[in-house]
């Protein structure tokens, strides 16, 4: 199933400023949230805006904060001037009878260990249904073309 991925406006604002972009720290992670998360694409900037204590999924096999996405890299420009931001896919959430079943969105962010300094990057559209690892493995993969690109 393919789901639209979007960037937070505050992330776009950060990337546009070389000084602030260079200061982004932490581990790139993908977290799963429930339908109770009230999205604000324009204003949400840090992980504390998610109110993870009540909006992040909970269940066996899911670690609070989500799974890491290793080696984030910018590559390019290719011959056509296209640059691509990409990272390794987060590990699959293995099926568990005590797992979660109410995931509705994936949230990509840089985890610093402190919610108030962990920058939000992007979010998926609502999955359209409650999903999780309760009945089967649950995975989220980035696109074959990368997480996002910057054309000329």
């Amino acid at each position, binding site marked *: 199933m393919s789901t639209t991925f979007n960037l937070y406006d505050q992330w776009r*604002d950060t990337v546009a400023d070389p000084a602030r972009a260079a200061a982004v720290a932490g581990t790139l992670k993908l977290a799963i949230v429930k339908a109770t998360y009230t999205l604000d694409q324009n204003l949400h900037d840090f992980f504390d805006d998610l109110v993870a204590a009540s909006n992040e999924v909970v269940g066996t096999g899911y670690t609070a904060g989500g799974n890491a996405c290793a080696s984030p890299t910018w590559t390019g420009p290719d011959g056509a001037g296209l640059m691509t931001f990409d990272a390794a896919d987060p590990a699959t959430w293995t099926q568990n009878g005590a797992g979660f079943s109410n995931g509705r969105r994936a949230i990509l962010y840089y985890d610093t260990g402190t919610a108030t300094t962990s920058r939000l990057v992007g979010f998926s559209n609502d999955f359209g249904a409650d999903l999780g690892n309760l009945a089967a493995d649950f995975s989220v993969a980035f696109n074959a073309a990368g997480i996002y690109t910057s054309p000329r």
Partner: protein
Amino acid sequence: MKLREIKSVFTNGLRLPRFLSKQKPEQKLTPKPLIVNISPERKVLRYVGRLMRLYSALSKGQETPEIQAEIRKLRLFVEAEGFLVSNEAEAVALYKLLEGA
């Protein structure tokens, strides 16, 4: 700022005075769809795409142990699916082939 420049902002908005034009550079960031519960076929395409970019990163001097380890892992997966990819050119060729399949 000259009165004429102010007028250009508040009358037609087409020409910005110099101090206002010093904005952040235009950026075009295009997010790509995520794949939930990816199929094996799409997984191969995804891994070859990632491999292609990691080889590209290597060729531009972004060589780290982490990237090397990820390349090894991706190559093993792709090999298990019956494809041999040992450099950027081969990865690009296979990606184009799979993308069009």
